[in-house]
């Protein structure tokens, strides 16, 4: 029995090559059937995401030419495909799958979405009766190992996207974030993405101030024109600012006046604009916490570094689990 993985990912191949091999979910069953027939293997799983396409096989006989199968199946010249492919067998294949599922091979280290993607790929193969004893055990162990990595290490603890970091900073100030009011200044893409991060944390009360009220209303029914900002600001516990403006859109006296009307209740100001929208002097006010793009990016980088450090704690878990599963599979054979 030999377990193999052949594929490419965001590190080994550009998106133009990856997209040619990509298999949509509705075509997985057909792809699996084609792989098993062409290469005469009893078990196969295809993992196809925006960042990788990998073919996992369990075989007993001689090694099939997986690269040739992929090239013919997806109509890519083998010479174009071969340089981007990687191939692992047995222990290395198991280790690779466990690392992928735990998010250690992802573009964003420690991301959790890949775990669901691997689970979906395995379940699709299982439903298509393309898996057996070997790949069933391998993929079930991969999912268990990913959970273990998540609970025993801090690899997934810290956010590594700026919008999540911004929401986390607000959550470090306010214990009851869902009950807070968020004011978003500007209705562009950056603001929208950050607003989603707050919505994910349960924030419901959202005010939008923008030059054009119609565009603001796409984000919230409570939309106001730009000139009403001094009047609306006191209602906001959190301000997300990302607007194109000459000079500062929010100056320190405006924030001070808002604080006074709020009876000095704390405010979090997230300045996502470049150049900055909020006067840095506002950050010196007593109960104001100001985060600009540089600060948030610094926190994001620090979090990524922390995840990289945590990766060292993950490798022994993965290695031990990979050895155990290969040993088990060889014993049962």
């Amino acid at each position, binding site marked *: 029995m030999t377990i193999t993985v052949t594929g490419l990912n965001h590190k080994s191949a550009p998106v133009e090559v990856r997209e040619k091999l990509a298999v949509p979910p509705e075509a997985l069953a057909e792809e699996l059937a084609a792989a098993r027939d062409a290469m005469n293997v009893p078990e196969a799983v295809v993992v196809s995401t925006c960042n990788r396409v990998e073919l996992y096989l369990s075989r007993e006989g001689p090694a099939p030419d997986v690269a040739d199968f992929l090239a013919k199946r997806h109509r890519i010249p083998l010479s174009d495909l071969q340089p981007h492919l990687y191939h692992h067998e047995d222990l290395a294949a198991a280790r690779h799958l466990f690392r992928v599922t735990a998010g250690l091979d992802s573009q964003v280290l420690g991301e959790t979405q890949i775990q669901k993607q691997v689970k979906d790929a395995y379940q699709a193969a299982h439903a298509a009766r393309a898996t057996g004893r070997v790949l069933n055990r391998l993929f079930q162990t991969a999912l268990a190992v990913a959970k273990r990595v998540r609970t025993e290490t*801090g690899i997934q603890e*810290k956010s590594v996207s700026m919008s999540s970091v911004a929401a986390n*900073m607000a*959550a*470090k*100030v*306010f*214990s*009851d974030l869902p009950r807070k009011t968020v004011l978003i200044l500007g209705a562009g893409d950056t603001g929208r993405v950050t607003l989603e991060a707050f919505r994910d944390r349960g924030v419901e009360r959202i005010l939008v101030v923008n030059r054009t009220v119609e565009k603001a209303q796409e984000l919230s029914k409570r939309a106001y024109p730009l000139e009403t900002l001094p009047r609306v600001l006191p209602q906001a516990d959190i301000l997300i600012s990302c607007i194109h403006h000459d000079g500062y859109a929010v100056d320190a006296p405006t924030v001070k006046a808002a604080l*006074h009307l709020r*009876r*000095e209740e*704390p405010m979090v100001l997230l300045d996502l604009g470049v150049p900055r929208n909020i006067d840095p002097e506002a*950050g010196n006010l*007593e*109960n104001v*916490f*100001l*985060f*600009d793009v540089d*600060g*948030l990016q*610094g*926190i994001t980088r*620090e*979090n990524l570094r*922390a995840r990289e*450090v945590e990766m060292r704690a993950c490798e022994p878990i993965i290695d031990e689990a990979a050895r155990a599963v290969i040993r088990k599979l060889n014993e049962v054979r």
Partner: protein
Amino acid sequence: METHASILLNAGLVGYATAILTAFTGLGAGSRRSFNAGRRLALLSALFHFILLADLGVHHTQCPVMNVFGFVLLLSVLVLLVAAASELFLEMTGLTVMTSPVAFVFAFFAAALGDAARTPPEGAATLAASVHIGVTLLSFTLFALSFVFALLYLFERGQLKQGAPLKLDFLPPLQTLYDLGHRFMGAGLLLLVLGTVSGVLLARTVPNPTPHDWRHDPKVIATMATCAAYAAAFLFHFLPSLKGRRTAWACVGAFLLLILGLWVSTLLSPLHNFR
């Protein structure tokens, strides 16, 4: 002090010191293992002191402590136990470790005082005495916790004001630290007032009071000063210009005044002057 009591006392002190060193070194190095080991060691040290107190005959019925040594050592144990309970029930990671320096300081203070002869003072074996000492003890415990919350609040606030990556990012939100500190302070103040009232009732039961009345008693003066300081700190929160950082600093100042008052009043007179 008997040998085994001395061993328990010193084992607890060394345990606290080691726990603090281990936990804070672990924090700096990002080692959860060291941090958790420090927490367990701090709890073990509190256990040593608890066993010592039980051995000395401290119990809940009638005057839980016989002298200032017992008072301060029991305070040390209570501070850590309440912190551990808060960590568990309020899900406040790291609170036990953060409180262990305060527990250590109290334990060290007790060791410095030494365990004097434990002849019960007059009027000690009464319900009034138990209530007075027990309630005062609890109030000091809550003040110690509010001090820790205030320090953590000031630390985290400073970090957030810088807009930089957070050290101690396991700390709860700023608002939580502030609210808990304020509530513990309020509860401590209430208990201190009750302790003072029960002390007044106790004083009336003491036979043959000396000419030195309570107005010149160092402990009473220290308690009044502590009460006033905490009342001011508590009320700061309700004034918009003083809530937040200034309230936290007032809480820190009030606790330092409490420590100073406890130390000075104990040096001047181990128990109340009016016997």
